[in-house]
């Protein structure tokens, strides 16, 4: 006597002979599950059917599971929000969904939720509306509310339920950082009530919980105390301080709105739920959030450059144990590969191994993992690991002949299926491949310094490079957790080509007498992660000069840059460059802040300077686009954001320029919009 709802597209619903209702979310035509109008409507039908059945005593529990192998629910379908332009429209969508969640929560029978794989954003907000949550211990399971990373806050009453279940400290902490929790951590916080070993055991654990009528435990006294008024404002001020240390409120308002929300309404369920929607709607339609969502899509765009059906490379061989080679090796090892690092100098290898170990200690979770990582990294002075490698990356001195000979000799030894790549930043791929029997094999894999922190790798397609080699290069890049950007083999590829005019433009201003700290402050105000002068120091002034010469910028003898290089003041690495460096920090004089004509004037002056500084970068982007260095404007924006840290909330350099142009043409409407959002936030 099983009962089903046959007309559902994205869910399977049935009530079994035990009177347990099973709802399996398996969104049609998608690899993951998301809440959209359509999937939400079907959920509503499920809830309504269960309400009805519960009234008649025909169902004793409702269990939610996912039909996807690696995801539970990854959130609300953000694409649906793109079309919404008014706060009211956003609120309508939100209230529809929160209404369904509330009905779910009020069901008189146990509602159990079995989580395996990603359970994020709206997915977790849904799970928290259930009565009892079981997650798998599997490494694929990740739980979190990453909304702030998209410039919004949880909008389906997640802020309310999160702070209730986990308490304010843990709950707000997780929302403010947007971090994804492992199942054990989620259980520790109280987001999950029980763990199951794996996906197979999950449905049986859910069934048992349903029969035993399990419910999540009432939050502890301590958790509830965290929402008391005095404690709340204390916590809020600490959160505000910690958040301000990481992001600027004028660039990233969402976390600050979230803190205000908690400070004003924490612990008061109805008021907080109501206010959440009021805060959520303007953020959702703000430019910042649109741009951050755009950045997320751009990251997906880059990840999709990698074909899904190629085997994951297991063994990498890195030639050259300098900073780049050593760091590339360390990153490969940390992402699970076996790596050999080759250099003629055993001393250089030793140094690289030492640095790699430091990296493992920071990156990996236990001593055992560190030991295993160390065992995966092999020093190789004679190159005998070469023949076993799936990927070979050359990172030696930028001398054409040496590289030519190296690849010529390697070609005879490496496996036919191995990827052959050079990390060159200034030589042409085709020139390096010139001596090879099969020059179509060689590609460029251009890493950025510092390798562990920089998310982008340029995959350089020489004129002769074979397309499948380029694609396999992309697959390797995604396998080590970075974003691949396919570029043409032009000087500086994309990132250096657009970064250089910006850097040298800024350095030129120094020669004209501008204050370096002011330049950097202006760039940071614009939203760059680090000012151009400090960046030049960090990269190394000798390298800057070298790049300048390669890209055809003049560095006059009497310029500051040339003089400093001549005096061996090379920046951070020699503790003296444009700045004096102390313990790895640039010592900036704070004249800009201490003697301004007025706060406001200096702020607008900095803003104007910031916009000016960035102009050469955007010009270079337009040129790169016109030259076809990368596929299209989105790829330019993606490359520049992930390769230079270009202010993510501005959506990328070309997008930024385009939106500036739009604004000037349609400036009549905008003040009103702005007024409305400002008013709502102030509530």
């Amino acid at each position: 006597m099983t009962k089903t709802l046959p007309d559902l597209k994205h869910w399977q619903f049935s009530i079994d002979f035990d009177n347990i209702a099973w709802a399996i979310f398996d969104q049609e035509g998608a690899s993951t599950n998301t809440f959209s109008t359509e999937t939400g409507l079907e959920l509503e039908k499920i809830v309504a059917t269960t309400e009805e059945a519960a009234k008649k005593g025909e169902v004793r529990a409702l269990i939610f599971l996912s039909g996807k192998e690696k995801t539970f629910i990854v959130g609300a379908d953000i694409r649906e929000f793109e079309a919404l332009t008014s706060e009211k429209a956003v609120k309508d969508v939100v209230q529809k969904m929160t209404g369904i969640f509330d009905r779910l929560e009020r069901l008189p029978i146990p509602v159990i939720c079995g989580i395996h794989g990603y359970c994020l954003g709206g997915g977790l907000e849904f799970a928290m509306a259930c009565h009892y949550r079981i997650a798998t211990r599997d490494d694929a399971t990740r739980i979190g509310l990453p909304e702030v990373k998209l410039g919004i806050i949880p909008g389906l009453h997640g802020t309310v339920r999160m702070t209730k279940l986990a308490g304010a400290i843990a709950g707000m902490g997780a929302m403010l950082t947007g971090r994804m929790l492992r199942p054990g951590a989620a259980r520790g916080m109280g987001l999950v009530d029980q763990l199951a070993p794996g996906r197979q055991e999950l449905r049986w654990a859910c069934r048992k919980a349903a029969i035993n009528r399990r419910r999540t435990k009432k939050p502890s006294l301590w958790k509830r105390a965290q929402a008391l008024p005095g404690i709340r404002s204390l916590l809020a001020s600490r959160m505000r301080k910690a958040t301000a240390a990481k992001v600027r409120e004028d660039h990233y308002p969402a976390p600050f709105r979230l803190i205000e929300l908690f400070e004003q309404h924490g612990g008061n369920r109805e008021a907080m739920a109501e206010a959440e929607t009021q805060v959520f709607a303007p953020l959702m339609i703000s430019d910042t959030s649109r741009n951050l969502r755009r950045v997320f899509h751009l990251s997906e765009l880059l990840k999709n450059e990698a074909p899904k059906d190629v085997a994951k490379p297991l063994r990498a061989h890195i030639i050259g144990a300098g900073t780049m080679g050593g760091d590339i090796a360390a990153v490969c090892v940390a992402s699970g590969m076996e790596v050999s690092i080759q250099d003629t100098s055993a001393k250089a290898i030793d140094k690289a191994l030492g640095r790699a170990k430091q990296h493992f200690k920071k990156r990996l979770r236990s001593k055992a993992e560190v030991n295993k990582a160390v065992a995966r990294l092999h020093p190789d002075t004679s190159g005998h690991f070469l023949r076993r490698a799936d990927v070979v990356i050359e990172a030696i001195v930028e001398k054409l002949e040496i590289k030519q000979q190296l690849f010529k000799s390697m070609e005879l030894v490496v496996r036919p299926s191995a990827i052959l790549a050079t990390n060159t930043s200034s030589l042409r791929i085709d020139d390096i491949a010139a001596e090879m029997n099969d020059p179509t094999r060689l590609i460029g894999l251009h890493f950025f310094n510092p390798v562990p922190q920089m998310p982008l790798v340029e995959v350089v397609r020489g004129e002769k490079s074979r397309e499948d080699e380029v694609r396999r290069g992309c697959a390797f890049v995604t396998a080590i957790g970075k974003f691949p950007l396919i570029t043409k083999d032009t000087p500086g590829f994309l990132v250096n080509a657009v970064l250089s005019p910006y850097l040298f433009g800024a350095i030129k201003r120094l020669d004209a007498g501008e204050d370096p700290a002011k330049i950097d402050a202006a760039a940071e105000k614009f939203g760059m992660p680090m000012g151009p002068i400090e960046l030049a120091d960090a990269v190394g002034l000798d390298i800057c000069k070298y790049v300048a010469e390669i890209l055809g910028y003049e560095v006059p003898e009497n310029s500051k840059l040339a003089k400093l290089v001549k005096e061996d003041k090379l920046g951070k690495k020699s503790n003296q460059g444009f700045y004096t460096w102390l313990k790895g920090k640039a010592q900036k004089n704070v004249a800009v802040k201490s003697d301004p004509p007025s706060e406001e004037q200096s702020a607008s002056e900095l803003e104007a300077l910031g916009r000016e500084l960035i102009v050469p970068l955007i010009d270079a982007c337009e040129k790169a686009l016109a030259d076809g260095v990368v596929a299209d404007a989105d790829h330019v924006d993606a490359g520049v954001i992930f390769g230079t840290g270009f202010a993510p909330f501005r959506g990328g350099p070309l997008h930024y320029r385009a939106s500036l142009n739009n604004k000037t043409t349609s400036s009549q409407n905008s003040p009103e919009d702005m007024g409305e959002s400002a008013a709502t936030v102030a509530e």
Partner: protein
Amino acid sequence: MVGLQKPRRVAVIGGVRTPFCRSFTGYADLTNLDLMTTALNGLVEKFRLQGEIIDEVTGGAVVTHSKDFNLTREAVLGTKLSPRTPGITLSQACGTSLQAALGSAAKIATGQIECAIACGSDTVSDAPIALQRKLALRLLSVSRARSFGAKVKAFTKGFSPAELVPKSLSVTEPRTGLSMGQHTELMAQEFHIDRASQDLLAFESHHHAAAAYEEGFLDDLLVPCSGVFRDNNLRPDVELSKLAELRMAFEKSSRGSLTAGNSTPLTDGASAMLIASEDWAERHGLKPQAYLTHGGHAAIDFVGGQGLLMAPTIAVAKMLDQAGLTLQDFDLYEIHEAFAAQVLCTLKAWESPEYCRNVLGRDEPLGSIDRTKLNIKGSSIAFGHPFAATGARIAATLAKLLSQGNNGKRGLISVCTAGGMGVCAILEKAEA
């Protein structure tokens, strides 16, 4: 049943294993189930068996928990094989996975099944900690007692705190109370195997294994497990002089000759191999690496005083007679190195007219083998020895060797086991 048809040939498609780790190192937090599942999934990946129903998966572990009463079936359920694949757990100590292959091979030969996976796993890092028998009996009688008073009485009567000391794992023979090493030490003395020749064999094992790594021979035989890519017992830079310096591990007097260097350490790891009828292999587009043509096993009266690990001498002699072959008719010999002394005793026994007459009942000795054909890619002393996993490791190695160019046509496998048994098999090259 198929009746008296001619037996079908049994193809060895190939095998994989996890890297082996000395116990309490790389796999300290893994269980037998984890290791076996990883090896099986590695095999699935290698031969694209996702979703396939394999007619049977047989194997087991030596050191095992009672909750893993059918470890193999549980492991299958964790793989990408069809959940409709049955699993059988069996044990013949260190011969487990080879015996598993022999049993399934016989079923393939008779036509009862078409394909099978033989596997084995062991970890001492997840050894069960058992209660003293006295305490176990006490707890059982407490649970049977009806009233509270009776329970208290059952618990306290004659109780001694010594009962609370848990029994930890020991690799000793239950009948003799001697460890494997102590037994092998006795064999070494009986057969006059000196320390230097044991060290030399150990040295060669490490060097062969290191060379095998370097040439990439092991790359497709290994499936990385928990971030480990390489056997961590292997010492590519081992030196004879260093081996000679090690202290005795079992017999500490000057008569002793076994050290940690010429014995296998406690090791964690798992292996699996795929065998099938030629038909099945062809239908699945898989090329046999070799054929499993003969197999056998035997036991020895070690309780009565014979050498514990000498049973392979009997098993091999019997199998050679069945196959109509002599000991010299092989191009490759894979003799499991539980201890260097075990290998050397076995070889010496086959050469000894006296032993062959008295123990094997033969007029002529089996004779000596060409030592350059022995364990040419290294063996257990270098790789380590997770008991139940060793048989399939050796069979997969030999099958791959036979499938390659000019390594020869026929190979012999001999594995000694705890409990005084030996398991052996013959693999022959698949014609091109």
